[in-house]
Structures are given as C-alpha cells and as structure tokens.
C-alpha cells in the first residue's frame, strides 16, 4: 500500500520516517520524496497489514498521512504500442508481451510523471484522487 506523508520542517529536521521504522520494526520503502526548507512530502510503500500502525505512528510524530489513490491510466485508444515509455520508467512498470502489446503493472508506479510527460501519443495520464 502506498501512503503520502506530509510533514512540516519548521520544528526542526526530525527523521520521522526513520523513527517509525525503528519504533515499529516495519520496513518502509521511500519511493519518492520532495523536501524543501519548510515542508516535506514523501511517497512510501508499506505492507498492507501494517497500514494502521504506520499511519498512527506517523500522525503521532506530527505528519499528515493519506492513502495514495491516484494511479497511472493508459488510454488504449491512443496508445500505439510504440514502447517509448518502457525505459524511461524508473519502476519498470511497462513491458511488451509476446505480441508486442504494451503491458503494465500499475501497482509499481510511484507517480514520478515521466511517462506521462514523454508519451508521444498522450496516452498516459494520472487518474485523479477521489
């Protein structure tokens, strides 16, 4: 399960994700992080069953947490199976099957946005978070 964690850095640079890992023993995968001097946002991946625990601990440490619901969407009527998205994706979300048709595993996507930006046929978009 993917969570978006937002935290303020005004109160100092606390290593809150590392703290949660230490406190709970749950291994957290940080897939994307944008941190500037006042604020930070991280996309983390955790085992589904530890969701409640991790959310609670992060909230205790002052971060706001929400489940990532957005994902990557492929418009099959626009896609021509060119493959331009395959190697630019850092998560290896895309590949060709034996018939050279594009396949994808959305669950690996970290929404970095690269494929959306470069798809020559504008076939990829981000589904909105409901």
């Amino acid at each position, binding site marked *: 399960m993917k969570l978006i964690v937002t935290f303020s850095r005004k109160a100092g640079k606390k290593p809150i994700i590392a703290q949660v890992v230490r406190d709970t023993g749950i291994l957290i995968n940080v897939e994307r992080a944008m941190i500037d001097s006042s604020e930070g946002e991280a996309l983390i991946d955790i085992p589904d069953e530890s969701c409640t625990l991790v959310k609670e601990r992060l909230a205790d440490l002052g971060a706001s947490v929400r489940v990532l619901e957005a994902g990557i969407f492929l418009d099959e009527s626009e896609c021509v*199976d060119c493959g*331009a998205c395959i*190697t*630019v994706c850092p998560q290896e979300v895309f590949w060709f099957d034996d018939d050279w048709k594009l396949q994808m595993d959305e669950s690996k996507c970290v929404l970095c946005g*690269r494929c959306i*930006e470069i798809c020559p046929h504008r076939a990829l978009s981000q589904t909105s978070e409901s």
Partner: protein
Amino acid sequence: MHKSIEEINRKIRDGSVRVVTAEEMPLIVEELGDEGALKEVDVVTTGTFGAMCSSGAFVNFGHADPPIRMERVWLNDVEAYGGIAAVDAYIGATQQSTTLEDEYGGAHVIEDFISGKSVEMRAISRGTDCYPRRTITTELLLENLNEAIMCNPRNGYQRYNAASNSTDRTLHTYMGMLLPNCGNITYSGSGLLNPISNDPQFRMIGSGVPIFLGGATGMIVGQGTQHSPASGFGTLMVTGDMKAMSGEYIRAATMKGYGVTLYVGLGVPIPITDLDMVRRTAVRDEDIEVDIIDYGVPQRSRPTLGRVNYAELKSGYIEIGGEEIRTSSLSSFRRARQVAQELKLWIETGKMEMLLPARPIDPAKAAQPMRETVQGPRVLDIMDTRVISILETEEIATAAKKLLKGETNHLPVLDDGGRLVGIVTTYDISKAVVNPAKGSRVMDIMKRKVVTTVPDEAVDIAVQKLELHNISALPVVDQERRVIGMLTAMNLGKLFGGRWLK
C-alpha cells in the same frame, strides 16, 4: 526458375496466390530451402509504423465566392505552405500551431481530417483583379476538400541508428527521452519487416509500385530525400489518397522537447520472382545492424557507442562495457505487423496486384552533408583573450583583489602546470569572507567542476551550455586544458549588430 509478374498476378486473380509476411519468410526459407520457397511463395509483404517527420499532404479547397488567391493559409492555426496556386496548400506534419505550439501541429491536422473532425481554415490575400477577396475563414471536413493527397518526401528509412546519451543530464530528442549516463537506448524501425531491408538492391521497389500507406493503397513516387542506400539508409518518397486512410495507421505525436511528428504505417509488397528475391526477403533481425549514437555530443557526426542488430535491440537489453542497458523502441512493431498482415490480405483477396518499377531507384547513392559557404561564428571569433586567472595555492584575499578591479566576475583557477582545475566567482569570494571556516586558499573554496568550451566550438553550442548550467562565463581551453580565453555573456553581445548577423 523464374516467375514472371504476370504469372503472380494471374494467381492473385484466380485466388491461388501464396502471400507471406517478411516475418514469416525466414522460417519458410529455412524449412523449404531457396528453391522450395521460390515455388511456394509468390509475394512477401513488409510493414513499418513509426515517426516519419518528412510527411504531409497537398490539399485543394475549391474556390470561394468572391474568389481568393490564398497567400497564407492556416488550418486550426497551423500554417500550411500557400506558395502554390490560389486554393492549393501543403500541410507539413511538423509545422506547429501558432497558439498551441508543440501540443498541436500539421500531423494533428492530418489526423483530425482523417478521423472525420472539422478543421478551421483561415487564409489571407492582398487581393487581385481576378481574385478580389482578402480574407476567408471556414470550417472544413475532409469530404469538403477536392483533393487531400498525402505526399511524403522521406518515409520508410531502411534502418535507423539507435540512440543513447553519455552526458550527466537527461536529453529530450526526436529519439525520445535519453537518460543520463547511458541509462537507456532507444531505437526505431521494424527490422526484418522493413520494406527496403527486404529489397536492398531496389529490384522490386521503385517508382509506380503500389503500396500500403496509412491504411489506403498508395504508390512509391521514387527515391526519398536524403536517400543514402550506399551506407544502408535508403528512403522512399510515397503518395496516397488521404481520403481513403485510417486513423489506425496515421497518428499525430509530440516528441517532448523536439516537437510534432506523424506516425505513418507503410508497407510494400515484394513479388518473389527468382532465387535472389527469396534470399533477400529471408533477411532476419540479426542481419540488420545499426550504430548506437551518442546524442550527448552536439555535432553532425556524433560518436558511436557500439554496433548492434535489431534482434539485440528488440531483446530489451544490450550489454555495453559489461553493463546491461535497457532498450526500448519508438516505433510500433505490433502495428508494423498489422500493416504487413493487412497488405497480405489485400493481395490474397485481389485488392492489389503487383507492378514492376516504372523507373528504378539508385541502390548505390550516398547523401551529402550540407555545403556551408558561410561558417557560423566559433568561440574563437568572439572570446576575450585577456584572461585574468589565479593559482589554486594563492590566498583568497589575492583572488578578492583581482576580482575587485572589476574587470571580471570569474577567475579560472590553475594548477602550477598552468592547467585549469577550478573556477571562483565574486559570489564564491563573498561567501568565503562571510564564512571563513572553509580555509584561506583559493583551492579551499573553488568549484572544481568547470564547464568549458574550446576555440572551434560553434557559438550556438557554447550558448546552450551557458543556458543549461545557468552560468555567465565559460573558460576556453586548449588540448592541454590551458585557459586561452573566456567567453562571457558580454562577448555574445558582439554577435548582435556585429558581422555575423549582417
């Protein structure tokens, strides 16, 4: 044994013709042998589907009342070439919209027409006695045009060099997004399905030969522009009726950072008349080689990082210097296959018959680079040769004094051999004054990663470096990394109003 075109056409008419795709042919030849394959197979169909920038269409709008002699014409804000007769224009695929820029272009106009959408045409004229009207705006559908004749000056490249990028920044090219440090390799072309790769001697491919173009029957006009089969890069000029084309096989696209292009589906049928044609069409991906070009080097002749064949490119990984690099295509092999399949069906059902070229294409031609009579400005022409530099071992205070004189904001830093090892700016010095903890010598505060230029580099390339790194000066170094000049934003002023822009 020799099979005539008439014999093949007779078989097409009576329904007994045997057509296979260029993908199936190698296996058939392997199984039946050359002689057996010649008896068995009458036509091999090829196909390719990829970005073909050199594409466009001639359109004729018919006359308005009162009539206008269109001088400039826009279709959905994309300018079409109007320098032909009163109501004719050529819409080129890569021309970009004046309002939407690279999000919409000539390719999109063509796609919109084909998919039945309405396109706004605007035109202006100075007005003449016979054509008094000066402006016109109207909505047009493809069916409202008298003609829409696709005519592509260069399609169906025999093969295309693969691309990679050795620099440390991401590049956006017509070969797609190239990740830094050779993080990926991109390629284009359908390999063993490519038309010219199945007939590199142009025995069956030539003027007048019927083809599949964008889902319609088209025709080869002749050799394409920049045709260079001597080095394995033959091209074709092709034409076809846009009114019969399908959105499946004509698709507009935008290559980020490069611009608009058109994906075209093209297939050529190759009659198998003798053993030579059997052997040619038995070509496999393994037999078709290309170079991997380093797009990090901004010159016409870019260095190559290796040579590979299409089987390797299609495998998804290539090993270079012990490292596996992922590969991905920009053209669609799936659609190339569909083109070859559909063409096969056309022939099997008698929709298309074979024709020998009415005029041959030269299989040995080599394209030439541009003859440049006026050399563009080089760094050498405008650089400042009065270089004020400093040794890395000197005191920061000395550097500060040199900078304070106000002649420069950048001090190249040299080692005792006189070679460039770093750079300090006025900003670095003032930072060091505020925070003296770092040390007292130039080497303690200098930037060691210096972006440089060389005397014979084109000024345009140097300017790109300045913009890219957001800096205002470049040391000009010789082969021994000795600083022989500085190029600053100020020197660039010489270009304007100077001799280069006359």
